[in-house]
């Protein structure tokens, strides 16, 4: 079922990024612009319709200092609960696995076990500890993730990892749901005496009124 996204632009165009003005310069690369990061996005058969990529992975070559902000909705999805625990256990992380198609929210204990299984399988492939893997999900609420399709796609997803712009763009496409554009940006700026890079990707179009902590 899985296939590699070779050209993210064929699925949805890039969003206009309205960066505030400041002492930084926009650069290409999104989440892979900074040193040490790779990304990939593939179609893993999770979406109900179409073959747009639906599985993304961002990895770091070293133990990255990690931080997170999460919905304060009491009915938090299983990946949210999992990530909060992972960040309590470890100050660093090595990978973020994201699926689109099913939100894995309001799915109870079974949904939480799905997250554990996904993190454990990816950790085994990447030779990491499960708590070094963080998970995000988006899609239809109340549906568990299509775990078999996801687990079967992990080897190809890992093989697709790339430090290039294409890697970042394919990941940015793979996390979209009803989005009409992919959202990715990177900047370079001098911090102290050294140039550093920051990049990112995001998704979102509806059910948007975040209140994260």
């Amino acid at each position: 079922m899985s296939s590699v996204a070779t050209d993210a632009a064929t699925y949805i165009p890039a969003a206009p990024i309205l960066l505030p003005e400041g002492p930084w310069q926009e650069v290409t690369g999104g989440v892979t612009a900074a040193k040490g990061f790779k990304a990939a996005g593939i179609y893993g058969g999770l979406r109900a319709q179409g073959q747009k990529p639906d599985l993304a992975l961002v990895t770091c070559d070293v133990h990255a200092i990690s931080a997170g902000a999460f919905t304060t909705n009491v009915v938090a999805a299983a990946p949210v609960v999992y990530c909060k625990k992972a960040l309590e256990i470890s100050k660093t992380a090595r990978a973020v696995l994201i699926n689109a198609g099913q939100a894995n929210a309001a799915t109870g204990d079974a949904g939480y076990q799905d997250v554990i299984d996904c993190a454990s399988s990816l950790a085994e492939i990447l030779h990491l500890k499960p708590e070094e893997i963080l998970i995000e999900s988006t899609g239809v609420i109340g549906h568990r993730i299509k775990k078999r399709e996801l687990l079967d796609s992990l080897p190809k997803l890992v093989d697709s990892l790339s430090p290039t712009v294409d890697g970042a763009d394919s990941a940015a496409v793979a996390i979209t749901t009803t989005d009409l554009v992919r959202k990715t940006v990177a900047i370079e700026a001098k911090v102290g005496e050294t140039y550093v890079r920051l990049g990112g990707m995001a998704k979102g179009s509806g059910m948007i009124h975040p209140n994260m902590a």
Partner: protein
Amino acid sequence: TMLGVVTTDAVVDSDVWRKMVQVSVSRSFNQITVDGDTSTNDTVIALASGLSGAARISNLSSPEAAQLQSCLDAVMQGLAKSIAWDGEGATCLIEVSVVGANNEAEAAKIARSVASSSLVKAAVYGRDPNWGRIACAAGYAGVPFNLNELRISLGDILLMDGGQPLPFDRVAASSYLRKAGEVHGTVEIQISIGNGPGWGQAWGCDLSYDYVKINAEYTT
């Protein structure tokens, strides 16, 4: 649902990084709104590899921390605005700026109240320069201010000053909204509530018929 992943090669301590991320999230993703529904899955993960070779940032009050915070704010605001721009059914981004509040938090609260208002959003879609709805949404934000100091502008067009509605070119104001919608551009709403140092922004989008259509067809 909104999701985000942010990466950097800056060298930063864990406790400093975690505080920075929350500050930037508060100034960006937590200041956007499309439909008022808070998702079960909203998540932002931020990773710092430390591979840039820069000096370690271990003090939140250092100049380097301030520089990194500004960069993080910029990246997250850029992404956050693109989410609001891409709001389901939207024809334009709405940027609300509030000045003159007692502090950043109060300004941000008023800005988000206006950006969240269904009536303001519908008025923008209807190309209606409805200063009354903007004033109303500012007023119920939960932040007390002196009505006599309320000032509201739409783009460069001043609609209200000193708490008093002003005569303005309604056709020009409506045209400003229409043109923004035609090019999926940005509608700027500026609000001043006094002389305090607090400044904040929020971002939303207009509310169109398509929003209902999209969500009537996207099952749960």
